[in-house]
């Protein structure tokens, strides 16, 4: 001790500074090592407890869910299983959360009465209070978790959360509230869209589509309602939903959108019209070829529209014009379409190819390759 003290006093100020610095770093590093090992131990313990709890819960849950979906479970037996769950749940501090997670997980796989049963169990175990507490947390992640739990289990979301959607800058939180609304508002799931001024990202589109695809088709909202929404991504979203869910009544509104100033919307409208097989508006669609001649996306959509028509009739000219388009993809699509439309069209194509100095030969080869479809 004395020796080290004498060394220390013999160092000049800079050296003392370095040595102190080194000492601080080493102490911090060692602290980190202990933290690492501690965290590892806690994680192992936690995952063990969780697995154990899950197995316990699972047994009671099985009997609760399976019985109710086939034959009626006597209420005494129901109460018995519920009490079992409660006991197991309260034995551990993390018990309630493990239970909620398990219910949500099962909810993803089960439908019908079994799914409703999960909601009931959530309610009867008094778990909504756990979830609601999370809404008051300062961390947005915990808030999101609470919202997710309440909406997945078909509870309700306190009114004050609605106001949050306009206030929060946090995208994840905003998306979550939006999705919760859609899930919980059974009568008018997209009511929020009317006043919505946030973005509908492709990610939200995927989530919403997923949700609506589990809906009964007759109760789906009429997406054409928002075709004149001021936000263009909302319009794009609604068009894609209308075509995915085959809402044929959207056709007149889609035709109107053909004259929209944003070419992306025009292209999407044409795509929707062709997916909805609105072939009676073919003239309006083909007319867009003139206006948006150089737009790759619109050109491709028009070609596909004619391709789905299945026959050429009066529109040969439109397709043939595209054979000389400056964009490679457009030309290839035109060749593919002509190749797929029977002998007459193929003859025409061969003829055009000759006229164009065999510039299309490679493309014709590509288009007639059965392995490339």
């Amino acid at each position, binding site marked *: 001790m004395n020796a080290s003290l004498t060394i220390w006093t013999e160092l000049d100020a800079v050296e003392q500074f370095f040595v102190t610095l080194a000492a601080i770093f080493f102490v911090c590093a060692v602290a980190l090592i202990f933290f690492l090992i501690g965290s590892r131990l806690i994680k192992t313990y936690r995952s063990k407890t969780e697995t154990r709890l*899950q197995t316990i819960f*699972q047994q009671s*849950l*099985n*009997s609760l*869910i*399976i019985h109710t*979906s*086939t034959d009626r479970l006597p209420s005494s037996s129901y109460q018995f299983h519920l009490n079992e769950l409660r006991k197991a749940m309260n034995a551990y501090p993390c018990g309630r959360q493990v239970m909620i997670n*398990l219910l949500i*997980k*099962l*909810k*993803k*796989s*089960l*439908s*019908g*009465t*079994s*799914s409703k049963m999960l909601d009931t169990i959530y309610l009867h175990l008094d778990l909504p209070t756990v979830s609601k507490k999370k809404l008051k947390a300062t961390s947005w992640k915990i808030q999101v978790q609470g919202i997710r739990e309440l909406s997945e289990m078909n509870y309700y979301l306190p009114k004050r959360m609605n106001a949050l959607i306009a206030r929060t800058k946090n995208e994840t939180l905003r998306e979550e509230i939006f999705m919760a609304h859609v899930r919980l508002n059974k009568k008018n799931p997209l009511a929020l869209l009317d006043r919505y001024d946030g973005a509908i990202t492709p990610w939200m589109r995927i989530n919403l589509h997923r949700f609506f*695809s*589990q809906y009964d088709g007759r109760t789906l909202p009429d997406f054409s309602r928002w075709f004149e929404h001021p936000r263009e991504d909302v319009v794009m979203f609604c068009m894609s939903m209308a075509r995915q869910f085959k809402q044929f009544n959207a056709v007149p509104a889609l035709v109107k959108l053909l004259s929209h100033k944003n070419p992306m919307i025009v292209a999407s409208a044409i795509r929707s019209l062709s997916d909805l097989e609105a072939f009676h508006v073919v003239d309006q669609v083909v007319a867009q070829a003139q206006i948006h001649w150089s737009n790759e996306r619109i050109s491709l959509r028009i070609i596909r529209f004619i391709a789905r028509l299945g026959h050429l009739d009066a529109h040969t000219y439109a397709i043939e014009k595209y054979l000389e388009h400056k964009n490679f993809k457009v030309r290839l699509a035109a060749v593919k379409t002509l190749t797929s439309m029977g002998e007459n069209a193929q003859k025409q194509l061969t003829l055009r190819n000759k006229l164009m100095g065999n510039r299309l030969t490679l493309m014709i080869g590509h288009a007639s390759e059965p392995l490339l479809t």
Partner: protein
Amino acid sequence: MKILVCDDDEALVSMIRFKLSRENVGDIFIATDGKEAKRLLQEHEFDLIITDIHMPYHSGLEIVSFVRQEMKKEIPIIILSAEGLELTVLRAFDMGANDFISKPFSPAELTIRVKRLLNLK
């Protein structure tokens, strides 16, 4: 009757096992990943396979092609998956699956389909 259930969701597997054993359709074997599924397939003669598509190591579709192409067996196979895209369903049938149930599903419906494939009442 021996039935193999493959899914990496243990909660779900346990529920399916509970449901099917209550209906007395036979012995239920469980695999929670593709490797285990293949091992069990080689060790036992199964009368029916229920499999998820997404599992660790080998996908459900690989299990289908393993049974049909390599083992050359006509064991009925039910695919139970959240991947309900038309393309995936068609591919599954193309490879030799007998039935496709989209998640979320109803356990009662699953039982009926299992019984039908096993020719039970």
